[in-house]
């Protein structure tokens, strides 16, 4: 009897996880796509050096972080998958959402502080919890650059890259 109740609770949790989890995931993806379009003008690159190393620029660290948790259904599917090996699609989408979210938050901070270019972007992933409730933190950080004198644009931009650089600048729209 007790075993039956336990099994019932387990099945209920996995079912709730399946329905609520897929709603959460769909909403999150919709929100990510909408914000990725909205922040399309904030450029983020992995390059170690800025495109223009000569002109004076304001540089500051920006970061974005998100702690994301798996749902019971994903954990259950992953546990099954663990028996046979192979791709864990349930966790792949989870990690992808977390990475895109962290990058979006980095871009949001950059824009809030007036920058439209972020270079040297790095990701760092940490496991917060494992077991039946695995959760991960994804942290993105990089250096935001604002060309000096963007308050008075139109002249005195990069000597090296000329007008091409204007695309990164705040002055250009």
């Amino acid at each position: 009897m007790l075993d039956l109740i336990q099994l019932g609770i387990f099945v209920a949790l996995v079912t709730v996880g399946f329905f609520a989890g897929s709603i959460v995931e769909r909403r999150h993806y919709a929100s990510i796509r909408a914000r990725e379009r909205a922040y399309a003008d904030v450029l983020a690159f992995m390059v170690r050096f800025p495109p223009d190393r000569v002109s004076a620029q304001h540089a500051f660290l920006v970061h974005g972080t998100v702690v994301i948790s798996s749902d019971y259904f994903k954990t259950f599917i992953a546990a099954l998958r663990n028996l046979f090996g192979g791709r864990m699609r349930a966790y792949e989408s989870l990690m992808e959402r977390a990475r895109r979210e962290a990058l979006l938050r980095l871009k949001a901070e950059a824009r809030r502080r007036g920058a439209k270019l972020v270079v040297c972007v790095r990701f760092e992933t940490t496991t917060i919890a494992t077991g039946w409730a695995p959760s991960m933190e994804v942290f993105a950080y990089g250096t935001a650059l604002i060309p000096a004198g963007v308050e008075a644009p139109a002249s005195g931009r990069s000597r090296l890259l000329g007008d091409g650089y204007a695309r990164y600048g705040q002055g250009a729209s």
Partner: protein
Amino acid sequence: MIVSNLELIPGRRILAHYGIVQGSTVRAKHVGKDIFAGLKNIVGGELRGYTELMQEAREEAIARMVAEAESVGANAVLNVRFATTSIAVGAAEILAYGSAVKLDEA
């Protein structure tokens, strides 16, 4: 104080190097947040309480690193890197480290 993970700041010259500066903090999870996170685990998604916790911890680590840089007379920390380690279940160390340097005036 300029904090950046670049190796140089465009248009600025490095006048002096002061070596590595670091700041770290060890944070534990809050029981209330933990219970809420336990419930949230059923449906999945973001654990906002933990996101805020990690955010605060990183800012604290950066602040301590900057304080150390100021104490040696630097005006910038370059090449900043982060590292996170779980020390025990529910406790994590967040470390920020970088090179303290003196830059010329812009």
